[in-house]
């Protein structure tokens, strides 16, 4: 069984590795946005040094981590939900349900492969360009990088769980566009993609840092910047892990409820 999912994951990796032009275009766009955002953050931190507990170098690292992780953690769309919704809408999902594999695990494996490719293909180059142009903060040693990668993996898992749940709504709504847009909006704002969550004022910041979207970028970035020491790091992982479990469970419950009502038309 595990071999099957490993094959699906490898397939996800290879499938996205085929689109080299799209990858190059994505890298270019992420880099351009990285530059634009970097200068706005420099201006902001120039006025208020140590805003949100970040130095300018930390803030710049945050910008480029965000650009590198957009597709990995699914801040602006998981990259698979449109396809899944379309399969639900057209009824092709019946074929998927007929396979001797779990639907959620199948899509998660494909997502894992895709994320791994996106991290290598779309993450590394913008980070390198950003580091070269702005000399931002780097993690202290290989241990820091490893801790960051674990947080990214957990963030990517939470991202998948959110978008899977969103896609499940199509079983009831058929047109998932409304829900997708709302989720997109939530992801964009509450992941800290536009502005770090620790810069959000008062209660808004408190709430934003508790929501699942904080797992996608804010937590990995803070792990990268070494803001968590000792047991705090375990706490950060636990925060991501809990959201992953809760959302996976919700997705599974929605899937179970949906598959009970699926009616496949013959003919």
């Amino acid at each position, binding site marked *: 069984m595990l071999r099957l999912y490993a094959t699906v994951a490898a397939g996800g990796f290879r499938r996205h590795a085929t689109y080299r032009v799209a990858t190059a275009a994505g890298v*270019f766009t992420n880099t351009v946005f990285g530059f*634009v955002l970097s200068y706005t953050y420099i201006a902001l931190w120039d006025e208020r040094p140590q805003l949100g507990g970040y130095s300018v170098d930390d803030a710049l690292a945050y910008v480029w981590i965000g650009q590198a992780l957009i597709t990995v953690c699914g801040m602006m769309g998981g990259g698979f939900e449109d396809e899944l919704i379309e399969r639900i809408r057209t009824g092709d999902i019946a074929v998927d349900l007929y396979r001797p594999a779990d639907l959620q695990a199948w899509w998660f494996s494909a997502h894992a492969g895709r994320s791994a490719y996106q991290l290598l293909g779309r993450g590394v180059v913008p980070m390198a360009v950003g580091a070269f142009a702005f000399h931002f903060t780097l993690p202290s040693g290989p241990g820091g990088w490893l801790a960051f990668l674990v947080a990214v993996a957990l963030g990517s898992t939470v991202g998948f769980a959110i978008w899977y749940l969103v896609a499940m709504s199509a079983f009831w709504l058929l047109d998932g566009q409304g829900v997708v847009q709302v989720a997109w909006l939530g992801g964009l704002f509450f992941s800290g993609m536009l502005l770090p969550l620790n810069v959000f004022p008062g209660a808004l910041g408190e709430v934003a840092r508790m929501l699942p979207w904080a797992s996608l970028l804010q937590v990995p970035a803070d792990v990268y910047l070494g803001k968590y020491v000792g047991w705090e790091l375990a706490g950060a992982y636990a925060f991501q892990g809990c959201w992953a479990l809760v959302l996976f469970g919700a997705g599974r419950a929605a899937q179970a409820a949906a598959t009970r009502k699926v009616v496949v038309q013959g003919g």
Partner: protein
Amino acid sequence: MAETTRVGADSAGIHEVDSGAIHEMDSGGIQEVDSGAVHRNERRSYGPLADSWRTYRLVAGMWIRSTMAYRASFALTLVTSFCVTFFDFVVILLMFGQVKGLGGFGFAEVALLYGTAGTSFGIADLTMGSLQRMGKRVRDGSLDTFLMRPAPLLAQVAADKFALRRFGRVAQGLLVLVWALLLLDVEWTPLKVLLLPVTVVSGTVIFAAVMVLGASTLFWMQDAAEVTNSFTYGGNTLLQYPPTIFAQELVRGVVYVVPLAFVSWLPALYVLGRPAPAGVPEWAAFVSPLVAAVCCGAAGLAWRAGIRSYRSTGS
């Protein structure tokens, strides 16, 4: 109004190419009779501009009617579209909650930059935003259907899947613009008052030209749509902030290489009574319409070249 002129301006001359493409297929032995019909139709047409406008109106109208079949869904997506762009502005509000000024610009001044760029980009995105999805049509060959129709291709593709919900972005941009004008403490002269609408219109045309230029590259590289995003969405983000915060090389780049500075920066700086960035002369604030015209010319040439090199997948 802006988009009307634009659609026409760009497709002027494209019409011929379009029918040329149909011809090429004909010589491949498709349907002689059809090409005759196309020709007769063209002789009766009222010129490429009017044709483009008519096509655009018809196709867009069709999509609007189809959207209106699900009114609740439309209302929801319109509100979300407004919110997405509104959150974009919330970021600037949050920034100004922490600081008094960015790069020496106050809130009202940044809001003016945001409002002018946002409105222009919103209108361009509403009218031409569908172009970025043309790559899929090139890849799966469904562009052939468009080429067979006796109507200008650019107008057809631009109006394809016309999404009225994108009006949310225009509304948000206008709202911020009006807010900025209410807050601003500027000595208004007739010239400045006149410059504002001219800026919004030229800005729209420049953004739209960039979109057409980007779509032209899709004939060769179907997956490269995201590159255009970095100039449209990225350019819009760039123009929302004062030029003083960016590296001077970057500012020179958007003045001389990709002339996005003419969308809003240069005219808005004149309105604000601030010096132009990167050693650009002051009269540059008034040449936006000219720059827009040049951009349209370049986009038209690129589009022609794109269509000429189009080879159907045949499926």
